[in-house]
């Protein structure tokens, strides 16, 4: 057993989980800030971004060291590659949370209006995707990751519906255009967070099963390994 190498892998895993927690928290805070028109939560999201950026660099450095110094193979190699990609997706999730917070900061300056869009429902679906994608990583279970992939279509539909309804609202009630535009951008930000959760899930499947299921390719291979998940 290569103890030092194993310690390095454990360290990488712990750091990525911590970063996952930060990114998940940022999205939840940003969504709650939108729902409550809460500026203090917006500031927390903005302040938290630098922590996520620092974590991203540290994870990349550790992964780079392990690749260079330990020459990992097979499942270990796949794990490290998956971690570097998940790391990048989590950082982007943090960026999307900042974008949402910035929309909210614009929105609180404007009168509150009723809009035909259910952002809280969409936010709940997206948060669940991020949470489950991270759970699939913690558990090393590809079937959990697979379930996240299936949720992405639901969020895409929500985004499309929001787009149609909000454009209609802007046409019918020009006075709500700015609020509707902010809501539209938030819906798009949330949909992008869902895309990152999907990417994370695909990377978990790659790590666990050795199958590349991106762009709907390789799902057959993944299915053949249903019962062979590790960890």
């Amino acid at each position, binding site marked *: *057993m*290569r103890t030092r*190498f194993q310690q390095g892998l454990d360290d990488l895993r712990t750091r990525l989980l911590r970063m996952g927690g930060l990114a998940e928290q940022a999205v939840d805070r940003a969504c709650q800030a939108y729902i409550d028109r809460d500026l203090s939560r917006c500031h927390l999201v903005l302040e938290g971004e630098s922590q996520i950026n620092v974590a991203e660099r540290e994870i990349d450095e550790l992964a780079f060291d392990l690749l260079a110094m330990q*020459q*990992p*193979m*097979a*499942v*270990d*190699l*796949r794990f490290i590659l998956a971690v570097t990609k998940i790391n990048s997706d989590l950082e982007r999730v943090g960026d999307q949370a900042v974008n949402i917070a910035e929309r909210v900061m614009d929105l609180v300056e404007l009168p509150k209006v009723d809009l035909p869009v259910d952002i809280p429902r969409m936010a709940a679906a997206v948060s669940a995707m991020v949470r489950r994608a991270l759970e699939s990583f913690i558990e090393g279970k590809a079937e959990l990751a697979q379930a996240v992939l299936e949720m992405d279509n639901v969020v895409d539909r929500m985004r499309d519906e929001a787009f149609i309804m909000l454009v209609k609202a802007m046409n019918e009630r020009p006075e709500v255009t700015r609020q509707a535009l902010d809501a539209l951008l938030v819906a798009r930000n949330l949909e992008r967070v869902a895309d990152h959760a999907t990417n994370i899930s695909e990377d978990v499947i790659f790590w666990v099963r*050795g199958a590349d299921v991106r762009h709907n390719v390789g799902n057959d291979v993944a299915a053949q390994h249903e019962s062979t998940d590790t960890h």
Partner: protein
Amino acid sequence: MGVSIQVDKLNAWFGKTQALYDIDMKVEANHATAVIGPSGCGKSTFVRCLNRMHETIPEARATGRVRIGELDVYNGTSATQIRRRIGMVFQKPNPFPTMSIYDNVAAGLKLNGFRDRHRLDEIVERSLQLSALWDEVKDFLKKKSGASLSGGQQQRLCIARALAVQPQVLLMDEPCSALDPISTGKIEELIFQLKESFTIVIVTHNMQQASRVAEFTGFFLLGKLIEFDKTEKIFTNPSDKRTEDYITGRFG
């Protein structure tokens, strides 16, 4: 040109101890195939069965079928005929210490009664060029002994010696384990070039080396071939848990 090797139900023993169990393997012509596994797993015994070196050990025996191209190794072919078709390079370079560089390369041919001096010169030069040693030794071929060369040069000299008899298969039993990284790099580059003309089977403890030079890899454990597949598959996503545990350093 290299030829393919077909191994069927190969078993080998040292006295009463069985070292190989029912090995089946197809080695592709003009490719490098790596054999990996922990110490004592039977990988060296396996390659030594391919050229009947195994039976030179007292009480050692082998059963099963090995075909080198059209030649049936264990049926109706003499060991000498086999070894003319299969060159072998060992872990520790073993040039003949009292012979010149030239005579080291020419030794196999001279032993076989080859006397054409002009042709012999050509073969020695070609073999040394193939082993990427010619430029380093051409000025003192007959003046210096094989033992005067560095470890890496000695190993390339041994490769030249093996190539001089114009084999179809080259067996390499941990050819770089006694060499520094620069010499190792030269030998690996050489393996890459030699594949065009020979079939190569390389036993190695160095998994990075296997992944660098071989298109196919077989993993041996306790005398059994656990997994045989394209090298890329073995080192990124092996099918057998035991292979994965070995190459990720979880045992062995």
